[in-house]
């Protein structure tokens, strides 16, 4: 190879050095080999400065070698694949790869926002929250919004094929390191079905590392484990840079789970520990063994743990002798022999890192005796002890705690079917690890086979020595590298009262985001204990939550994108609507016509024409989505009295009554009409979108609160289709359909129902109106709906009939001031707010929500009340969402007035030739006639508060 890779010293276990690939990183070409990661290729090419920190834009290098990496994030592009915020340590190197560091511009070497670091003192812990208090949030908001977030989201179509999969096994072993493989082998040997998962390795068929009978799932990260043994995992089926990338989201079930998830090395706290070239010692060893890459030519090891000596030995063997080992422990290594060729400075802590011209030049240190010194070197490798990877155990319900007096990390109250082994259990000795893993595998197999619980403690006890406190320049000691949290931030947070570990996390963002505290949590806990003079046991680690590792949204959504985002219901007469030129929209989970534009007609023109047709002739609408529930039983009337604001038990058979359903807080849940079909049977109508909620409430109340009531509730929505005929000529149209139902105004008055035949179909007809015109809802069997629809249009041709959509319906009901739950109500709306106060007073029997309606809060006269608004200038438009302000604040002044309410519905009324609007305004009903300002998106309009009913206030038309 004639390409320079100054730090590539050996072939490396995972790379194929016979092939050379090129990639562009931050505009510069680097080379690497198949098997490299982006991180290892960067290091091999001598690139140390790879990122800028999140908050202060400090130069950053690589900290780790796999999921513990918390600095090096890139936006990458390879062929059609674009991915945002990938870890350089996890993303494979690929020929033609283009990568750009996030959070810097134009690049990490020269970053325009690096100046932010100079103001670090002005951005302490809780800075973001403090901007809410002083001087004011809006001052900082534009800048913070511009700076927030990492990476650039791609809007191009995602070429990845995301596949959801499910499987079940007797035992699932997470982690295919030595302990995991041994545990899987032991379990499989006992005749149970075993799945072995690893997030880093890929397994070939007949992989010699895996025992026969063990199924493998490589390149798969487990995201969550629950108490019952269900796991969610993300598999990268193909390499992410494959021409046809393929990923899977697995839902797995296991009777028993073995966690062999290993441990991650912690960083050490010393000034400037975030400089490029300072990394975890275990990561340096990983780069050397897997990729044949040296991270420094003359590294300095800083440690409080024996494992650094093993790294030093490996480096020596690779021809890269460490400059020195700075050991915090006065006694030096406990178990390992010192290396004769490597000087050990025992009982010393680093007091500074010399970083000049983009490279580390050495460190200064101070011994416990107070003497100072320095060591020259071009890299610093930290080894601050090991943190077991217990996120999955915590997800499964175990409570992690640091126990006194020896400070061991414990998982308490874990489920009995989860067994931890290997380094995740604190086992580091090779022989002991073999025994431990085999025991875990055997216990898991026994549990899976017959539920045998073992004496093995399913959780763990891992020694966790208290991290030493380094008193030098706290503001330069980074605890959380990803979120730029320093020891000084922890100190400030505790001074400001955030002395609980969960408060500290939220106040400083320590342990949040991608890193999830992998390298920082125990260090932070030690600092918190130091600053509060409390024990770590009393403080405890913060709660760990899923997902354990970042997962693409595409994988989480697997199978639920686009049309599959939510079930979409199609109307029975869908083909007829399409043929009539309908424009559709989703409404309450149904794909419904919003209008039927004709020829070159605009959408708005179509809506106005349709609304006028209903007012002057007759319109037809398919209303099949209306919820239809049959409530039957000897206690049906009693039940409905309890769940509706209105009294339904007094409703005679053959009649219909409007009702409001409330929750326990007196908030409006839904509305609809109820028809009494028989003394013990009611048809309850709901809104289209409210059906599921109403049904769930009915079942809950019947099964949990009133199991003594003899009532059955059945959803009939899917079985029935509905065609609504409405307008002055509606009756005439129905008469032309032919049938045996008497339709005269006296024979079939408003709010009554009849059963018989119409248009040759068995039908149940409800005379109810949402338009203010005479209306008939014709219910037929679902498969007869399309024929009835066609028949209505044909029969009404000479009456001027036209289909109308939801937009026209909304216009018509707004003219009449009819309530639309969801538009004119919100999660605080009570019946009195929308004009049903008298019903509450009249109803003496108890019903759900009644007690809340009698509280003083519900009786306040300044609650937002439903009123109508009429613009002073009839040509002025009114829009839903606009704020209603006090009078006298026209123009630019208006925006500074406090809002007194908002417009909840607004439409142009072709009948009245002006906009009609419903609004919720504080104390609105007492303010009829008052002129207010309506402010919307910079435009202020004068409007008068009027009655909600803008058309036919006497209601004569609907009963005609």
């Amino acid at each position: 190879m004639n390409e320079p890779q100054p730090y590539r010293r050996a072939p490396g276990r995972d790379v194929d050095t016979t092939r050379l690939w090129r990639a562009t990183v931050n505009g510069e070409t680097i080379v690497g080999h198949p098997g490299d990661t982006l991180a290892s290729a960067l290091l091999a090419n001598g690139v140390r400065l790879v990122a800028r920190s999140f908050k202060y834009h400090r130069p950053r290098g690589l900290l780790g070698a796999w999921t513990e990496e918390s600095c090096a994030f890139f936006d990458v592009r390879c062929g059609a694949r674009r991915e945002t915020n990938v870890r350089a340590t996890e993303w494979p190197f690929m020929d033609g790869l283009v990568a750009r560091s996030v959070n810097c511009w134009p690049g990490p070497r020269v970053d325009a926002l690096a100046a932010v670091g100079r103001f670090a003192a002005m951005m302490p812990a809780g800075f973001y929250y403090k901007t809410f208090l002083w001087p004011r949030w809006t001052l900082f908001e534009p800048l913070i919004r511009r700076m927030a977030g990492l990476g650039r989201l791609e809007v191009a179509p995602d070429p990845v094929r995301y596949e959801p999969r499910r499987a079940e096994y007797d035992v699932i072993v997470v982690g295919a390191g030595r302990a995991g493989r041994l545990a899987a082998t032991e379990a499989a040997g006992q005749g149970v079905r075993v799945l072995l998962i690893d997030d880093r390795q890929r397994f070939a068929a007949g992989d010699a590392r895996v025992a026969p009978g063990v199924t493998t799932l490589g390149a798969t990260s487990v995201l969550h484990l629950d108490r019952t043994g269900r796991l969610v995992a993300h598999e990268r089926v193909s390499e992410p840079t494959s021409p046809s990338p393929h990923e899977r989201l697995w839902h797995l079930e296991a009777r028993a789970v073995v966690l062999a998830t290993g441990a991650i090395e912690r960083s050490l706290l010393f000034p400037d520990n975030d400089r490029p070239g300072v990394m975890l010692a275990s990561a340096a060893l990983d780069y050397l063994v897997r990729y044949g890459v040296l991270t420094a030519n003359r590294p300095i090891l800083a440690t409080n743990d024996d494992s650094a000596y093993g790294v030093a030995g490996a480096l020596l063997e690779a021809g890269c002798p460490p400059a020195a080992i700075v050991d915090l422990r006065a006694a030096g290594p406990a178990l390992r022999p010192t290396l004769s060729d490597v000087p050990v400075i025992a009982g010393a802590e680093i007091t500074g890192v010399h970083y000049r011209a983009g490279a580390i030049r050495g460190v200064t240190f101070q011994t416990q005796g107070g003497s100072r010194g320095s060591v020259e070197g071009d890299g610093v490798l930290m080894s601050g002890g090991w943190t077991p990877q217990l996120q999955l155990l915590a997800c499964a319900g175990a409570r992690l705690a640091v126990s006194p007096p020896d400070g061991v990390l414990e998982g308490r109250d874990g489920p009995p079917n989860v067994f931890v082994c290997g380094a995740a259990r604190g086992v580091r000795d090779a022989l002991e690890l073999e025994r431990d893993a085999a025991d875990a595998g055997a216990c898991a197999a026994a549990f899976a086979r017959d539920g045998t619980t073992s004496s093995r403690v399913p959780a763990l006890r891992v020694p966790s020595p208290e991290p030493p406190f380094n008193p030098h320049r706290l503001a330069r000691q980074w605890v959380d590298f990803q979120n730029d949290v320093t020891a000084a931030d922890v100190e400030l947070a505790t001074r400001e009262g955030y002395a609980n570990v969960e408060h500290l996390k939220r106040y400083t963002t320590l342990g949040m985001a991608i890193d999830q505290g992998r390298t920082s949590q125990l260090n932070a806990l030690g600092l918190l204990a130091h600053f509060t003079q409390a024990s770590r046991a009393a403080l405890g680690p913060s709660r760990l939550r899923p997902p354990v590792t970042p997962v693409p949204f595409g994988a989480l959504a697997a199978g639920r994108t686009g049309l599959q985002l939510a079930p979409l219901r199609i109307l029975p007469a869908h083909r007829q609507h399409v043929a009539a030129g309908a424009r559709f929209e989703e409404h309450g989970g149904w794909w419904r016509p919003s209008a039927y534009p004709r020829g070159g007609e605009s959408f708005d023109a179509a809506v106005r024409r349709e609304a006028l047709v209903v007012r002057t002739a007759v319109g037809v609408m398919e209303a099949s989505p209306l919820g239809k529930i049959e409530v039957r039983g000897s206690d049906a009337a009693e039940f409905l009295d309890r769940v509706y604001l209105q009294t339904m038990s007094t409703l005679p058979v053959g009649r219909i009554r409007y009702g409001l359903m409330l929750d326990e807080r007196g908030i409006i849940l839904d509305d609809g009409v109820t028809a009494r079909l028989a003394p013990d049977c009611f048809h309850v109508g709901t809104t289209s979108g409210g059906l599921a909620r109403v049904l769930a409430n009915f079942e809950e109340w019947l099964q949990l609160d009133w199991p003594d009531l003899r009532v059955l509730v059945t959803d009939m929505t899917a079985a029935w289709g509905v065609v609504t005929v409405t307008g002055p000529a509606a009756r005439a149209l129905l008469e032309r359909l032919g049938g045996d139902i008497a339709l005269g105004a006296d024979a079939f008055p408003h709010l009554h129902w009849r059963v018989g035949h119409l248009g040759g179909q068995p039908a149940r007809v409800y005379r109810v109106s949402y338009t203010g015109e005479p209306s008939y809802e014709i219910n037929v069997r679902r498969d007869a709906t399309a024929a009835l629809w066609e028949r209505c249009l044909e029969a009404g041709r000479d009456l001027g009939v036209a289909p109308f959509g939801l937009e026209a319906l909304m216009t018509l009901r707004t003219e009449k001031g009819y309530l639309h739950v969801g538009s004119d109500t919100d999660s605080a709306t009570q019946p009195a707010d929308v004009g049903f106060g008298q019903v509450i007073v009249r109803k003496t029997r108890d019903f759900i929500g009644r007690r809340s309606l009698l509280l003083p809060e519900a009786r306040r006269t300044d609650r937002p009340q439903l009123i109508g608004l009429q613009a002073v200038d009839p040509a002025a438009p009114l829009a839903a969402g606009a704020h209603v302000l006090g009078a006298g604040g026209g123009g630019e002044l208006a925006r500074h007035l406090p809002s007194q309410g908002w417009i909840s519905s607004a439409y142009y009324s072709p009948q009245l030739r002006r906009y009609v609007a419903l609004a919720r305004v504080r104390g609105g009903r007492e303010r009829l006639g008052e002129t207010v300002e309506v402010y919307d998106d910079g435009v202020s309009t004068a409007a008068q508060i009027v009655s909600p009913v803008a058309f036919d206030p006497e209601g004569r038309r609907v009963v005609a």
Partner: protein
Amino acid sequence: MSSLEPLPSTHDFEPTPRGFTAEGLAVQALPAEGALSLRLPRIASTEWRRRTGALVWPEATGERRSSDGVEIWCLSPVLWWLFTTPAALPPLAAMIAEALGDELHQAIDQTSALAGVELGGARAADLLAQGIALPLARLSNDHGVRTLLGTVPVLLCNEGAERWRLRFDAALGAHVSHWLWQAATVAGLDPAERRR
């Protein structure tokens, strides 16, 4: 939802499910069926079973039994569904009403409420496993279960070797068709519309 992605040309919205084929897979819509839902008392006597003559009733929730062209599902101790041909349903409903008398709390003709599809082929179970949480391998012919396909409530049964039936809200026919089509695509199959 303000806008929707363009639909695959083979899956324009239809009120009924549409069939397609792929390697190791055939999906076809079920013909129209008569369907009847029954609500019975929480603690029913055994007498009513005898009174319904030749009908074979399941013994437990999640089971189904077939006899004389009538398939009966027990979805809970108080909720039962019967499937037969549309023509056979009215006399069957009348017979049951008469036989059960007061023990029948509610009988509702659900004939037009449901639609269905049948999946056949070696890959059918793989496809269903993308959206169904139940261990499909454990479902025998005698099982008839109410579950979710993705987010859609379905009635699922195994019709024998590599054959499965799904019944669902008729209004969701297009959605289920599209789900199956998408699942086949994601699974690396190459679905093609069945000629109508």
